[in-house]
């Protein structure tokens, strides 16, 4: 396998294998045991736009496995500001590292980088395009909660137009036969080409503007942030944002094992009253970013995860 640019780079079988690897690596991710599977390997972190969780969890994942990380640092102080092309930056970092994690504001940048590089590229988000490592941690979180991925009913809510997280995730869930409900304001609907792609793959997709009504028999509710800057007028923003705000009182009728996820950061879309409910999974989900990325780093570097994970105590 070269790199991970979109979820199409993985078969369902590979996805399940990587999730199983991740499950076994949990004690390593928690720091309970030390297992330096990636000792001597270097990850290049190339984040051309801001990232907290993705960048930090890649770094943590690599270090928990005994590997090292070099960072591009702030784009404003790198040679990008001097006008260096992405092609040249990749050529350079390719020589310094064994694998590259990258986020870029332009769509297609990860594939472009993979074509230019000899080391694997892990796409950490390219414009409004794909974010497959987030999808892997989302799938891990869902499987952890429900024990399976197949045939679940998943509500994706909020900004479905610009949110790359939900684009990658909905493709992956379709491959596992999940029923998808897209709940969003009209302005932020899932792009038409994605809906038609999903339907062509046999997905059962329902589009609605009513979040609360669609939650009752769902297994997963995946919330996303509605960004104020997407709206021309503030009243419209307030109306839309208000209709996609989850509060503990909205959860009385939902299934007991339904989980609420969010790629974070959240603003107002999940009220803190939800945090203490049995449904909240977004902080575990953020932690799972480490373990999912650990499993992906091992897979892309060709390092098998032992069937029984044992290591030295810290």
């Amino acid at each position, binding site marked *: 396998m070269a790199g991970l640019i*979109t979820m199409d780079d993985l078969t369902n079988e590979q996805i399940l294998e990587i999730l199983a690897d991740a499950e076994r690596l949990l004690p390593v991710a928690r720091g309970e045991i030390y297992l330096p599977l990636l000792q001597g390997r270097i990850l290049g972190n190339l984040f051309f736009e801001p990232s907290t969780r993705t960048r930090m969890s890649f770094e943590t994942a690599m270090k928990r496995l005994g590997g090292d990380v070099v960072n591009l640092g702030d784009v404003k102080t790198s040679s990008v500001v001097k006008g260096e*092309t*992405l*092609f040249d930056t990749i050529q350079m970092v390719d020589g310094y590292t064994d694998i590259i994690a990258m986020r870029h504001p332009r*769509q*297609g940048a990860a*594939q*472009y980088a993979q074509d230019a590089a000899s080391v694997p590229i892990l796409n950490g988000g390219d414009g409004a395009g794909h974010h497959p490592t987030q999808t892997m941690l989302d799938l891990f979180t869902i499987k952890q909660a429900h024990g399976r991925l197949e045939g679940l009913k998943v509500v994706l809510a909020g900004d479905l137009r610009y949110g790359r997280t939900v684009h990658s995730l909905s493709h992956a869930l379709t491959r596992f036969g999940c029923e998808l409900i897209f709940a969003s304001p009209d302005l932020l609907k899932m792009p038409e*080409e994605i809906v038609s792609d999903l339907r062509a793959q046999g997905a059962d997709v329902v589009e609605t503007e009513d979040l609360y009504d669609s939650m009752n028999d769902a297994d997963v509710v995946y919330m996303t942030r509605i960004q104020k800057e997407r709206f021309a007028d503030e009243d419209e923003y307030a109306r839309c944002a208000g209709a996609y705000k989850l509060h503990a009182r909205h959860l009385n009728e939902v299934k007991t094992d339904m989980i609420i996820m969010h790629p974070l950061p959240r603003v107002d879309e999940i009220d803190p009253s939800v945090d203490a409910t049995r449904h909240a999974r977004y902080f575990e989900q953020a932690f799972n970013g480490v373990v999912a990325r650990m499993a992906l780093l091992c897979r892309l570097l060709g390092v098998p995860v032992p069937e029984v994970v044992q290591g030295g105590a810290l």
Partner: protein
Amino acid sequence: MSNEHSMRRVTAIRNGTVIDHIPSGQAMRVLEMLGIGGATAVPVSLVMNVPSKKMGSKDIIKVEDREVTQPELDRLALVAPDAHVSIIRAYSVAEKLTINLGEEVVNVVRCTFSNCITTNLREPQDHRLKVVKRDPLQLRCHYCGRPQDLAELANNVL
């Protein structure tokens, strides 16, 4: 009406290129893709929506004193992949050219999506559009994966 009658709607040319079997209504887009506009000095004749046995109706273009080049044929493949192109010399067909629309269109046009990485023209890698479907033509960018706006492609010729 026979094909011969359709061809005779405009006079025969001495030297140049005849593009026949253009899908009806696409002649203007063909001219755009070939960069032939008001400022072009050579005479250009165009007939649109003439009956055709094979296609029902079709468009035909005759460009005098200009022979289409391979890069122009590659662009033509995006709007009229089944067109017949003949090079005319001294009133006779000197050459028949074949349009090949392969699996991928490389360095002919750039992606129509404004936030694609390839919109930075300083990036040196090839511009690559994958042919997803031939009839009707559907293209996607190799890098960003976006479906291409065919009407916009003429503005993105490289």
